């Protein structure tokens, strides 16, 4: 199907992205401009950036595939993932943005250093964990891109990967977060409108939702239930209530603390965006994800009724949406547009991940750990080099993707959850959380995520997602170690708005709002 029209559509799309990159590069004067777009993102750019950073290749490829093979019981994923955007803004964004603006945070690691008064240990540990997790995640995204390009152009895996990596790296390196956020706005717009226009056609082609549900119920009556009964009786029936519970925690909190998601809150121009952006991000994202999921159901029905056949592949379900589109639309033109939609979904996460890795390496590891005297120019240069190295390194990993790619992606999110969630929540909301507690909790979370992940994959299946016991261990360690060690100074706790509230109370007798950090002289 690689006709001139399709190639033309995809080429124009790539040119627009590079054009935005070139435009972004002209706005960059400092490292802050590169990493945080000069903290100037407006409401819609910020809100769509939040959605599109999370909305990855998994959304179109994975969600329709999951719908195809598991039916309604996994619909909860389509609530949990959008909720992670809202949670990130509410639980972390409000405080981090406010304090970050005053204290000049570039990354969430700056917060850890400030709150826990630990310039090296906690920054090093969290930055290294962040880079590793982001790299794992990146490999998954690249593979999703190459699936799309291979399907569309019938080109080999390596060629497909190279095209995608060169384009993304180019505009990320030259344009920084300006380019990433504005290309994301374009990509997010294409994704949202594209899914809203194409998915309903696939659903109608399969006979409408009522017919689809009736056919699914015929395959397995539990496919139209809100969850599968426990214990698990088949490979596709893993979404039992206990699994869904740990899945909810992992997705809602794990994605919210992911470095490429949480750092976005530092780039918003104003605090007041956090009033409605959670609701808007959630509703838009839910609508898109439900439509993609229903398209996956529809393709299952179309296949059962002999209207189409998925390819003979281990991951055949991942092709569900693409084959649905091919079936529903006769015009090749639409396939080119659809390819752009899928590419938009994958690339909007990939560029954000690349920039995050570059940032953590240049700012947290190089500038703050090894060479505090480095000039702004030098940090900017290192950041760009790190983006290229990360792109090439993960490309190399993606050439021979591991057999269990989905497992790797969930491993990435699980590790983020076990490592960052407890120290971050503890740091923001519990004044008794101490430096030693945070370091121990982060280290133990990382270690136990590795152990439980390995156990779940290679020894014996756990009844819950492996990140859940790791999270509990991380929590217990934070509480126990914090209570045994001296607390951080009140000045730092006040400056970092630490306490059991999201927004500061406006009560003090002196007329000063509690929790608002004092302006530095």
């Amino acid at each position, binding site marked *: 199907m690689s006709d001139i029209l399709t190639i033309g559509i995809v080429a124009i799309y790539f040119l627009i992205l590079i054009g935005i990159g070139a435009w972004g590069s002209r706005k960059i004067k400092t490292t802050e401009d590169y990493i945080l777009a000069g903290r100037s993102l407006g409401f819609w750019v910020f809100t769509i950036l939040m959605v599109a950073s999370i909305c990855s290749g998994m959304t179109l490829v994975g969600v329709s595939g999951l719908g195809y093979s598991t039916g309604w019981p996994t619909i909860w994923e389509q609530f949990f993932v959008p909720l992670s955007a809202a949670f990130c803004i509410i639980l972390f964004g409000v405080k981090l943005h406010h304090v970050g603006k005053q204290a000049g945070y570039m990354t969430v690691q700056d917060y850890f250093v400030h709150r826990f008064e630990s310039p090296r240990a906690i920054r090093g540990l969290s930055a290294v964990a962040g880079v590793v997790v982001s790299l794992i995640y990146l490999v998954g995204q690249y593979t999703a891109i190459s699936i799309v390009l291979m399907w569309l152009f019938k080109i080999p895996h390596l060629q497909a990967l190279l095209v995608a990596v060169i384009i993304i790296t180019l505009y990320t390196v030259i344009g920084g977060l300006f380019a990433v956020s504005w290309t994301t706005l374009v990509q997010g717009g294409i994704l949202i409108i594209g899914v809203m226009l194409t998915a309903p056609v696939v659903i109608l082609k399969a006979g409408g939702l*009522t017919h689809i549900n009736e056919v699914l119920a015929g395959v397995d009556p539990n496919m139209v239930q809100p969850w599968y009964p426990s214990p698990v009786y088949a490979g596709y029936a893993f979404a039992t209530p206990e699994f869904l519970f740990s899945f909810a925690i992992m997705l809602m909190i794990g994605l919210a603390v992911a470095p490429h998601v949480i750092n976005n809150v530092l780039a918003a121009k104003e605090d007041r965006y956090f009033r409605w952006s959670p609701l808007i991000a*959630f509703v838009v994202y839910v609508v898109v994800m439900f439509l993609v999921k229903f398209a996956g159901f529809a393709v299952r029905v179309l296949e059962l009724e002999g209207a189409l056949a998925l390819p003979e592949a281990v991951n055949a379900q991942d092709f569900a949406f693409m084959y649905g589109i091919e079936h529903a639309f006769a015009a090749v033109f639409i396939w080119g547009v659809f390819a752009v939609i899928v590419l938009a979904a994958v690339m909007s996460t990939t560029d954000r991940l690349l920039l995050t890795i570059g940032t953590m390496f240049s700012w947290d590891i190089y500038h703050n750990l090894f060479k505090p005297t480095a000039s702004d120019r030098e940090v900017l240069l290192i950041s760009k080099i790190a983006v290229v190295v990360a792109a090439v390194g993960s490309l190399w990993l993606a050439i021979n993707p591991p057999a269990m790619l989905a497992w790797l992606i969930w491993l990435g999110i699980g590790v983020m959850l076990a490592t960052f969630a407890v120290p971050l929540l503890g740091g923001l909301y519990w004044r008794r959380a101490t430096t030693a507690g945070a370091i121990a909790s982060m280290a133990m979370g990382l270690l136990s995520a590795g152990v439980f992940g390995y156990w779940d994959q290679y020894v014996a299946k756990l009844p819950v997602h492996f990140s859940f016991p790791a999270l509990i261990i991380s929590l217990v360690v934070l509480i126990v170690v914090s209570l045994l060690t001296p607390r951080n100074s009140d000045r730092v706790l006040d400056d970092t708005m630490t306490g059991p509230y999201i*927004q500061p109370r*406006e009560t003090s007798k002196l007329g000063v709002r509690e929790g608002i950090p004092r302006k530095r002289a």
Partner: protein
Amino acid sequence: MILGLPDTTAYIVCGAFLVMVLVLLLWGLRFREVS
């Protein structure tokens, strides 16, 4: 049956969506702008 779904599934999924929207709506309404 609602849209071919058992009533319980339809009510649980729609109810969950409404509760989530309501919570985020309340958040927006209770949000205080801090200058």
